[in-house]
């Protein structure tokens, strides 16, 4: 069992938790993830390691409430325990040797992008961060990003905070203004990553993306997380989750992510009913 040491609601749909997991904290690197189960009947879900503290033996996760399991997870509080918590899984992000990078985060993807930006900053790399949210209420991690960024651009779809527009608009503006990057790192919804890649392809800038297909074991045992990258089948949990975005078949990945939509919607409704009952 893994104790929840801290819980903090970052916005109405995104929650941060700090979990006691000393073995995972000992080895965690930016770009890696964990798999957890909330309870004995629970499914296994992957979440990125948003931060870690080797000394305290803790792992920070930041999750968006999108369905049954994240809803259940969000009903736990500090002092409660998770049934299972395994990691660190996946290959760490390659950050060594980069001099100037644009880090792009979209929505909850910012939780995944932040540890990478932080590590780049620690390694002395010049970091330009562009983050995008639907509106002001959903903004997360702004101060954290500012602390590790040499340049920081906030975008919202509706213009309620920062500039109005998409992250791709901001990236294009920076490039057009003469900024050059060794690499762009884009993490967010598949559709956002796809369009960032389209843009950077035009400018010939290498772009890494973090893929999040449906996973179970996270060790290469099931092949459920497979993607097509450069025409070859890759298992995201062991070969990734980071891939060269110009090689990824995003359309296929988007289709695969929707495989269990009906089941998931049903589960989500059931879970919500369950909690409403308890509230009464």
């Amino acid at each position, binding site marked *: 069992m893994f104790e929840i040491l801290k819980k903090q609601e970052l916005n109405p749909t995104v929650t941060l938790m700090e979990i006691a997991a000393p073995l995972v904290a000992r*080895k965690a690197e930016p770009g890696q993830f964990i798999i957890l189960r909330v309870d004995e009947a629970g*499914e296994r879900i992957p979440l990125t390691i948003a931060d870690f503290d080797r000394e305290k033996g803790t792992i920070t996760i930041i999750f968006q409430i999108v369905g049954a399991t994240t809803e259940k997870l969000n009903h736990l509080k500090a002092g409660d325990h998770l049934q299972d918590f*395994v990691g660190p899984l996946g290959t760490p992000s390659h950050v060594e040797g980069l001099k100037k990078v644009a880090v792009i985060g979209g929505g909850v993807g910012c939780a995944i992008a932040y540890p990478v930006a932080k590590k780049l900053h620690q390694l002395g790399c010049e970091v330009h961060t562009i983050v995008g949210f639907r509106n002001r209420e959903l903004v997360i991690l702004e101060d954290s990003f500012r602390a590790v960024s040499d340049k920081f651009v906030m975008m919202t779809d509706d213009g309620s905070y920062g500039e109005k527009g998409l992250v791709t608009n901001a990236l294009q503006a920076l490039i057009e203004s003469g900024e050059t990057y060794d690499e762009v790192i884009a993490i967010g919804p598949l559709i956002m990553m796809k369009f960032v890649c389209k843009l950077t392809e035009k400018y010939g800038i290498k772009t890494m993306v973090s893929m999040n297909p449906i996973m*179970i074991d996270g060790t290469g045992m099931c092949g459920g997380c*497979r993607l097509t990258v450069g025409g070859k089948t890759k298992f995201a949990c062991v070969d990734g989750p980071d891939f060269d975005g110009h090689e990824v078949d995003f359309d296929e990945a988007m289709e695969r992510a929707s495989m269990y939509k009906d089941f998931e919607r049903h589960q989500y409704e059931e879970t919500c009913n369950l909690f409403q009952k308890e509230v009464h």
Partner: protein
Amino acid sequence: MANMSPKKNEMPVQKPDVRNKNFDEVALGYTEEQAVDEANRCLGCKHKPCVGGCPVAIDIPAFIGKIKERDFEAAYQILQKQSSLPAVCGRVCPQETQCESRCVRGIKGEPVAIGRLERFAADWHMKNAKEAPAKVPSNGHKVAVVGAGPAGLTCAGDLQKAGYEVTIFEALHKAGGVLVYGIPEFRLPKAIVQREIDTLKELGVKVDTNVVIGKTITVDELFEDGFEAIFIGSGAGLPRFMNIPGENLKGVYSANEFLTRTNLMKAYTEDSATPIVHARKVAVVGGGNVAMDAARCALRLGAEEVHIVYRRSDAEMPARREEIEHAKEEGVIFDTLTNPVEILGDEHKFVKGMRCVRMELGEPDESGRRRPVTIEGSDFVMDVDAVIMSIGTSPNPLIHNTTEGLETNKRGCIIAEEDTGLTTREAVYAGGDAVTGAATVILAMGAGKNAAKAIDRYIQGK
């Protein structure tokens, strides 16, 4: 009086049209009367030909002799000298090609039902034995075991009984290996596997689930943490695909994924949070035990039609005969001499069919089996909405990639001495599917046993 019936006592089973709708165990087990009657078919041959067919050399006439005498506990005690998982092996061993294939009663008629008797004695013990296993005082030496499948469990049990402090590290949230994530409930009830694991824990074995060796901790770090020797029993869990068009459509699974969702995550139960595709018509590609298990699970999940699609003929199918027969009785359709070439999707990228070609058998290939060759112009489309690829697995490279000096062969199998399991790294031993590639429970268990002996010799000799 010896029972000279040429036929085995039949195994009571759930009726095919009942069992193909539930996940309860298919074979119900002998009653005491049936067991004694079957035991009386054994001639107690002095030269024990059957024992030569058992990879761990169980003293078969001796344990059957005790069943004849109705001393069922004594029968179990004989079994457990060689096998730490008799309730499992009695159920899943390919007896027909092992012990039973050498039985003299098989010359004229059917061999003695050794496996069924083994299961009977082990089940009897589970139901009736009360005494907790005696804990052995620690000798102060620590050994780590990687993987909680039959190889790891056996190695850990034997070492703990010899006084070692053993910790098993298991990547999944549940111990048991293929016994819990692969082989379905209806063939091997998970409660039986859990009993075996609980017994090990009572002996003092520590089981740390949620630890991936090579990720959470490396082999080298285990040595730094004070383990003096390591046994790797990490299995052969990496699934193979055919690399044909359409394999990433929604509704295409590896057998591992399909079985893990079904068995480990219990997707067949009402309250499981893990989804699975409930298909109308399913094609399972392959002809091994794994394919049979996947096909029979698919039926139980409610499919109207389940096809086994196999490129050779019925005779070459590597699955156990019993499993093939059970699958046929339950309604699985066998499309042999058939090979998929493409999976077809609908506009939402769900599977809607599978293009196949008919095959015929040509000259024998290097495996000695006749090579299947495509019949030109024979392609046709099967109407299916899910496809399960069950064409084999290989060892996961995770540990090899993170352990300096641990060598593997061309097929990715860890190189280890046959008798001891010693790898190319000092104090690192390995066995089971990780060394042989996908094989059997009993071989994995035997490898775990041999390695336990070798580890004991190594540490005592230091």
